[in-house]
């Protein structure tokens, strides 16, 4: 990026306090991909940033890049959509945070990913409108993995390419999903397979469909509990393998579920 002032649409991915009253923010922008910046005085009331820099807010962002440092200077922000319904409930808010953290983990600054801004803001809108967070998280994982070129194989063998759903005898077998080898593995390629997640063909078919469906029609897919449970396990295994650690929002889900309160 050249030295100068810029204006772009952006979703706030994360925000951490810095010094007395500043915040350091990560954004996903429509024109410049992932970006980090500093907002001076952002935590004081009655300042230009109040209420605009929360995670999961979509904004029109004005920033200055001096051409050298990694952090841009945030000069102003206008809220496009605060997704306030998402933020009024910890279950929905944490699901939204998961989309943010996943986007942050799967992308690098300077990487040109023009479709990811629309993907993220589109899914936040669906979540804000009350669509099932569980299903949206799974669909988002699949679509984002596709955007960054890491989509695993669901309905064909990641080793030999053989189609796995053609036999028609769906209920009779299960599919081995091996994250280290890039997805589903056919029976003939299972030699040397150690740990894997086992999913039923219906789940594999549903995940494949979710990767191909038009984005604006995704909310018409109504997955059942078996899909949600199996796809969660398979995709969690795959994503953890890709990023090499457990995500903070995933740990949060476990804590929220496990609390005795």
């Amino acid at each position, binding site marked *: 990026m050249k030295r100068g002032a810029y204006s772009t649409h952006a979703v706030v991915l994360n925000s951490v306090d810095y010094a007395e009253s500043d915040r350091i923010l990560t954004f996903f922008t429509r024109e410049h991909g992932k970006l980090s910046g500093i907002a001076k005085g952002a935590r004081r009331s009655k300042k230009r940033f109040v209420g605009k820099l929360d995670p999961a807010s979509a904004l029109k962002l004005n920033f200055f890049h001096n051409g050298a440092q990694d952090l841009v200077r945030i000069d102003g922000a206008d809220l496009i959509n605060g997704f306030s319904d998402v933020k009024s409930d*910890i279950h929905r808010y944490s699901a939204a945070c998961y989309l943010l953290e996943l986007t942050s983990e799967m992308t690098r600054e300077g990487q040109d990913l023009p479709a990811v801004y629309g993907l993220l803001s589109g899914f936040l809108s669906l979540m804000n409108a009350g669509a099932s967070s569980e299903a949206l998280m799974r669909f988002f994982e699949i679509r984002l993995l596709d955007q960054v070129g890491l989509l695993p194989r669901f309905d064909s063998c990641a080793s030999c390419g053989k189609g796995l759903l053609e036999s028609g005898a769906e209920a009779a077998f299960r599919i081995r999903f091996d994250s280290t080898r890039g997805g589903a593995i056919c029976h003939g390629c299972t030699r040397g397979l150690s740990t894997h997640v086992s999913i039923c063909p219906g789940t594999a078919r549903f995940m494949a469909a979710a990767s191909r469906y038009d984005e604006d029609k995704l909310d018409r897919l109504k997955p059942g509990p078996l899909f949600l449970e199996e796809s969660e396990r398979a995709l969690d295994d795959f994503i953890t393998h890709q990023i090499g650690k457990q995500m903070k929002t995933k740990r949060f889900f476990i804590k929220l579920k496990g609390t005795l309160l």
Partner: protein
Amino acid sequence: MQYAEPINRLIKSFAKLPGIGEKTATRLALFVLNTNREYAEEFASSLKAVKDSVGLCSRCMTFSDVDPCVICADAGRDKSQVCVVSDYKDMMAIEAFAGYRGAYHILHGNLAPLKGVGPDEIKLKELVERVASNGVNEVILATGFDAEGDATATYIAGIIKPYNVTITRIASGVPVGSFIEYMDPSTLGRAMEGRRTI
């Protein structure tokens, strides 16, 4: 050339303070080196004393050198009213506006999915026990109006609902997304008076 080891240690300690980088830490360490011995000893003993003598009040979880704290021990304050704040600084900000005569509960944080901070890592269990043990009529939720503060308030409201207490959220005059500690006293005063049931 490297700094002598004791200086290095001091720089590292300063650098752990919030908002202090390596450069400022070095400046502070050199200041301590150049200052007189009395100042340094006074500073060291305050650091030690604060950790030795200040703990959490067993009722409201605030930092205090006595247990119960002065507010919980004050017979003139209405203990049936509990104002829940995210941290100590927020409590001090509300105290600066002299109109509130109830008690507090300090959570020491908010639910924070992006930081992985769950319900068992803030002082929520203590709040529920307090509400469950009777004597509390109203819980005033005064967490911030940023996403974490708001989601935390709604979560708490859901948890204490079964105990049949009035649950209110401070509201009017507070810009969405703002932080309690940076609000001016009059805004905070209006927010406290304009609280609503949730």
